[in-house]
């Protein structure tokens, strides 16, 4: 199975609410990356957090990393309908999880 595992598999929220999704992994990492994939399209890189960082922000995105628990979280604040997509964590460019499918209802 893939090393990165996202949780939950699916998430449905109302526009304006915050969305939080988690990623767990098994081995040591240099960095962890989050990607977004809109239906029928390729993946788009969102944010990279290095193993010596604990938190990183980019616009409405906030990523945390806890290397002791081998986990990361992605928080999207004030969600919009356009945030509807699948979100994947990757512990390397060769190891992606199966993603969290986020639906934001207008």
């Amino acid at each position, binding site marked *: 199975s893939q090393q990165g595992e996202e949780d939950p598999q699916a998430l449905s929220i109302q526009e304006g609410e915050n969305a939080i999704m988690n990623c767990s992994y098994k081995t040591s990492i*240099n960095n962890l990356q989050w990607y977004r994939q809109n239906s029928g399209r390729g*993946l*788009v*890189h969102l944010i990279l957090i290095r193993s010596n960082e604990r938190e990183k922000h980019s616009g409405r995105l906030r990523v945390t990393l806890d290397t002791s628990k081998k986990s990361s979280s992605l928080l999207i604040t004030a969600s919009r309908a356009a945030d509807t997509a699948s979100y994947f964590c990757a512990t390397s*460019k*060769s*190891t992606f999880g199966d993603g969290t499918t986020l639906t934001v209802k207008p």
Partner: protein
Amino acid sequence: EAGVAQSPRYKIIEKRQSVAFWCNPISGHATLYWYQQILGQGPKLLIQFQNNGVVDDSQLPKDRFSAERLKGVDSTLKIQPAKLEDSAVYLCASSFQGRNTEAFFGQGTRLTVV
């Protein structure tokens, strides 16, 4: 800046036929990746090239899949013969060399084997 280009966007073939996909990475990106993404799953790396050399092809089914990156730029991925379970989206990505770099993905080729 032009992104990663892939063609074709869609392909339908019968089982046992052969098919080829083409990828043109972002200019200057030494590393190129091919992924297979089955519906509902994350991308699975098939092969990684560094310039025109193979770095990782451990998950490439070599009895039917082959890939090349001549001259260290464009790449082709071939399946021969195709099986029903090869139905998936095939994604190409490229990146600068180095661990802490992001991958840029193409739109993918959706393959349906009937």
